[in-house]
C-alpha cells in the first residue's frame, strides 16, 4: 500500500517538473505569437452549459462526473471545428500547468481546484479551451486576437452544437441555458475585450467615456478581475448581463465600446506624438524609466514588469524606441507571468528565484532594444 503511494507521489513529482502541456504551446500555433495589436490586444468569449438529466457538478459524485466526460468523448473526436482535440484529465496536470492555462486563455476563473472527474479540452489552434465539470458540466472558452468577435462567436456556437449532438442541455424558456451560478444563466455568454489604454488612464478619461457611452451592460476590471487594480494599463471590458439580452446584443455592446475606446486612445497617442517638448516630458520620463527598469533590474515582480511593458509600447509608438515590435512586447505580457516563465525554464525553482529569472528572461528578449531619447 505504502509502495503504491510512493510511486504515485513520484509520478506526480515528475509531472510537476515535466510540464507536458507547454511544448505544444511554444512550438505549435499560438494566437499570441503574431499579435501586433497596439491597443485591442485580444478578446475572450465563453459559454456555460449543463446537461439536462444530471445534477450540476457541485452535487455530483466523481464517478458521475467521469461519466459526463465520456458522454462528450465521441462528439469531441468527431468535431469538425476542433483541430486535433485532446482531453487532459485535471488530475494529470500539474498545478503550474493549470495556472498556465489561466494565463494563456486570460481566464477570470481559477483552475487550481480542478481534481478527479474534471478535465480540460484543448485543440491545436490553442485558441480554444473546454472545461468539464468545474462549476458547470461544460465551459467553452475561445480567445480571439483579431478583433473579430462575430467570427469568434460563430466558431464557439458551432463547437457547442457539435458537442451537443448526443446530449441535451438544461434549458428553461424563462431562464435560458441553466448554469449552477444563477448570474450566468440565459445566453450563458461572457464576452471580454482586453484593451491597452495607458493614455486614457493617464489623462483620467475612462470614467467620462463610460458615462457618455451609457452602456449599463458593460463592466470593467483589471487582468485579475479587480476593477480597482488595473495592471499594465490593460482593462478588461465585459458584459454584465447574460439573461434578458441576446448574443448579438452582447457582441454589439462590447464591440461598440471597444471601438470608441480604441479611437480615443489613438487620438490621445497622436496628440502626444505631435505635442511640444514640455507636454511630452512626463510621458518621455515614464518611457525612459520603464526602459531602465526592464533592462537593468536584477529581479522584477510581474506587476512591475507589466506596468513597464505598457510604457514601452507607448515609447515604441511614439518612435522613442527602436529594435523591438508590438508583437515582441505583447508576447512579453504573457511570457513574463509566473506560470509561463516556470514552464519556459522547465525546471524546479524556489519562489525567491523567480523574480531574478524573470529579469534575466526580459533582458534576453529585449537585448537589442535602444532608447532614442
Amino acid at each position, binding site marked *: 500500500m505504502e509502495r503504491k503511494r510512493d510511486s504515485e507521489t513520484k509520478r506526480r513529482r515528475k509531472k510537476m517538473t515535466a510540464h507536458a502541456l507547454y511544448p505544444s504551446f511554444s512550438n505549435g500555433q499560438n494566437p499570441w505569437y503574431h499579435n501586433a495589436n497596439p491597443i485591442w490586444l485580444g478578446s475572450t468569449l465563453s459559454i456555460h452549459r449543463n446537461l*439536462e438529466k*444530471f*445534477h*450540476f457538478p*457541485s*452535487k455530483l459524485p466523481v464517478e458521475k462526473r467521469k461519466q459526463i466526460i465520456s458522454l462528450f468523448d465521441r462528439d469531441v473526436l468527431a468535431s469538425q471545428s476542433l483541430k486535433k482535440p485532446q482531453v487532459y484529465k485535471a488530475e494529470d496536470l500539474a498545478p503550474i500547468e493549470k495556472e498556465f492555462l489561466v494565463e494563456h486563455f486570460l481566464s477570470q476563473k*481559477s483552475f487550481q481546484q480542478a481534481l478527479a472527474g474534471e478535465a480540460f479540452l484543448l485543440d491545436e489552434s490553442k485558441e480554444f479551451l473546454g472545461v468539464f465539470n468545474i462549476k458547470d458540466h461544460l465551459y467553452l472558452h475561445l480567445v480571439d486576437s483579431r478583433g473579430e*468577435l*462575430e467570427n469568434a*462567436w*460563430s466558431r464557439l*456556437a458551432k463547437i457547442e*452544437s457539435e458537442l451537443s449532438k448526443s446530449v*441535451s*442541455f*438544461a*434549458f428553461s*424558456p*424563462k*431562464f*435560458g*441555458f*441553466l*448554469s*449552477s*451560478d*444563477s*448570474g450566468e*444563466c*440565459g*445566453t450563458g*455568454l461572457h464576452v471580454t475585450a482586453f484593451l491597452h489604454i495607458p493614455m486614457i488612464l493617464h489623462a483620467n478619461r475612462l470614467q467620462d467615456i463610460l458615462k457618455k457611452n451609457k452602456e449599463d451592460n458593460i463592466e470593467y476590471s483589471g487582468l*485579475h*478581475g*479587480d476593477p480597482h487594480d488595473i495592471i499594465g494599463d490593460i482593462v478588461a471590458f465585459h458584459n454584465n*448581463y*447574460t*439573461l*434578458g*439580452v*441576446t*448574443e*448579438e446584443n452582447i457582441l*454589439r455592446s462590447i*464591440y*461598440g465600446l471597444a*471601438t*470608441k475606446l480604441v*479611437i480615443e486612445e*489613438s*487620438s490621445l497617442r*497622436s496628440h502626444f506624438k505631435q505635442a511640444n517638448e514640455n507636454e511630452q516630458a512626463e510621458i518621455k520620463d515614464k518611457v525612459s524609466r520603464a526602459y531602465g527598469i526592464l533592462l537593468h533590474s536584477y529581479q522584477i*515582480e*510581474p*506587476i512591475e514588469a507589466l506596468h513597464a511593458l505598457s510604457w514601452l509600447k507607448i515609447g515604441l509608438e511614439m518612435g522613442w524606441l527602436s529594435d523591438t515590435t508590438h508583437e515582441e512586447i505583447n508576447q512579453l505580457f504573457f511570457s513574463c507571468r*509566473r506560470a509561463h516563465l516556470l514552464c519556459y525554464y522547465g525546471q524546479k525553482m524556489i*519562489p*525567491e528565484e*523567480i*523574480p531574478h529569472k524573470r529579469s534575466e528572461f526580459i533582458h534576453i528578449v529585449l537585448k537589442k532594444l535602444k532608447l532614442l531619447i
Partner: protein
Amino acid sequence: MFERKNDHQIPDRPLECSECKKPISVRYTEIVGDMITEIHMCADCPELQKRLHGTSPREFVAEQTGNPAGLECGNCGTTLEDVKRGHLLGCSICYTVFEDVLFTEMQTTNRLPPKMINKKGHPLHIGRSPGETSSVTLSSRLVALDEALKETLSREDYEQAALLRDQIKEITEKGEWKEKGTPKQKDEEKK
C-alpha cells in the same frame, strides 16, 4: 531595510470569500482577549451579518424572507439557505423551486437589464435556444464604426475619421453585413 514582496506572496488571483467564494471586499478582524481572528468576506455575505449583529445565517435568511428557512429542492437537496448564501445551485429543478428568490437576487445584484425588472412572470430569456444556429452578421460592427465616425468628425479628428472610413469601406465591400436573421426569425416571418 526595505521589504520585498516575492511571487509566492502576491496572490495571482483575487482572494475569495471563505463562505461563498465571491471576491472579497471585507476584511473582518475580531479581537477577543488575546485572540485575533481575521476573516475575509464578500460585501453581501450573511457571515458578515452574523458577526455584526449576532444572528446565524439561518436566522438571517428567516429574517430576510419572513419564512423559516425550510425550503429545499427535492431533487438535489439544495436549501434556501444555500441559495441565499450564494452557493452554487445543484440542478435544473432548483430554478423552478427557488424561482422567486433567484429573480429577487438577480435584481439586487444587478444581473438583470433594468427593462426586464418589471416583467416578472414573463420569459426573461431572449437569446438562442438549444439547437438553434447562430448567424451574427457584421452589421453590429458597422453600426459601431458608424457611431465612432460621427463622434470623431464632430470633434474634427480627421486622421482617425479616415481610418474609420477605411474600415467601413472594407466591410461594406465584403457585403457580409446584411442582416440574414436567425432561422427562428425566418420561421416566424414565414408564419
